[in-house]
């Protein structure tokens, strides 16, 4: 258990664009990489409208399921896979990453760990974008703990270029957002 009280979060606000996004942030691998896939989607609000001032970060294992501890995400050299990326949504609420499929340990379902920030969102949200059609999805501890009708919000779908993962902040098809033990939220 933690002994110190955490510093609370606050919204990323409307003016993060000159502070956080950076050139190459969304290209975890170059588009020409033989195993490159696209992970993309739209961030939507409770009215179903796109959220054009949102920021998405992903953190993932490499294709072999190894955790990467290589620096270089902010100035990519085109060769080093760092496992981390950042993308702001565009005017239509869309984000897009160029990356590779994450792996996982034997028997585990691979996923991208996802963080969502937006103007109007008072604290960041955590989620997971699972790789679809993986045999381990049926035994995943998180997915099996969810009501059946909500599981699908965490599983990406396939398209011609890779995976689609839409993020619905509120309402119909609301994405499952996560809280972890010991995260400063006192509510049970």
């Amino acid at each position, binding site marked *: *258990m*933690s*002994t*110190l*009280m*955490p*510093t*609370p*979060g*606050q*919204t*990323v*606000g*409307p*003016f993060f664009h*000159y*502070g*956080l996004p950076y050139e190459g942030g969304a290209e975890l691998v170059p588009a020409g990489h033989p195993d490159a896939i696209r992970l993309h989607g739209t961030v939507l*609000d*409770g009215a179903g409208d796109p959220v054009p001032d949102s920021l998405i*970060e992903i*953190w*993932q294992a490499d294709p072999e399921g190894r*955790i*990467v501890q*290589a*620096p*270089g*995400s*902010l*100035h990519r050299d085109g060769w080093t896979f*760092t496992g*981390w990326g950042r993308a702001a949504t565009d005017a239509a609420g869309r984000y897009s990453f160029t990356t590779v499929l*994450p792996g996982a*340990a034997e028997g*585990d379902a691979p*996923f991208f*760990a996802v*963080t969502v920030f*937006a*103007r*109007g969102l*008072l*604290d*960041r*949200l*955590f989620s997971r974008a699972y790789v679809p059609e993986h045999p381990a999805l049926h035994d995943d*501890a*998180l997915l099996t*703990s969810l009501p059946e009708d909500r599981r699908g919000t965490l599983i990406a779908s396939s398209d011609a270029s890779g995976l689609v993962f839409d993020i619905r902040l509120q*309402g119909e098809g*609301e994405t*499952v*957002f996560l*809280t*972890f033990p010991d*995260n*400063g*939220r006192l*509510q049970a």
Partner: protein
Amino acid sequence: MLIVTQASELSTQAEVSDEIAAASKAYEAGDRGDAQPLLDYPPYRSSVLRHPTKDLHHTDPETIERWAPCFGPQDVSPLEADLTIQHSGEPIGERITVAGRVVDGDGRPVAHQLVEIWQANAGGRYIHKRDQHPAPLDPNFTGAGRLITAADGSYSFQTIKPGPYPWKNHRNAWRPAHIHFSLFGTDFTQRLVTQMYFPGDPLFALDPIYQSITDADARARLVATYDHDLTTPEWSTGYRWDIVLTGSHRTWLEDEA
């Protein structure tokens, strides 16, 4: 239940202050609230359609979530910690040092990790096309910086004290002066984006973003302390702000802890 007015008819500060007071009272009565901001906080109008209505789902972190991305010297130049030297001239405003330590919930330093900041200039204007506040832009100030923490978790930025600025949450709404901070820990689950405020700001009570943290002690943890030891004679004043990330889920080895 709080009534949310249409964007076309902006509320007054008094109306928003009443909503803030009601939320605060509800917290003190013990029916909601915690050490983090409420996500559903109608006094901050933009939150109305942008908060999840379902409870956050409790889960244990998987392996990837017990690690965080790694940043190093190739990611950040030491010059990026000084926001006052990014242009050919001196920026306008009160030159300040903002320094402190980043630690986890057990007080362990968060070493060699990325800290990013962004802020308005001394006149309360952001270099952002969406900021239409008619305060002057400062050609010598961009307002974005970053650094890598030292082995003891310490950090230090040189910058200009930002001004308060108006926004359109309600009529005559003003944000208290603040610096946005983005932090990583040793675990993915410790990711934090927040805002640092300055002591004694008269706008605290009126600001729905600050007040969305209904616990007064938790709110106070966002306010820096004036620290005369951080001043530089004939040059700058100083503020200290220590940051505590949530606990780590990693099993720490003896020599790491």
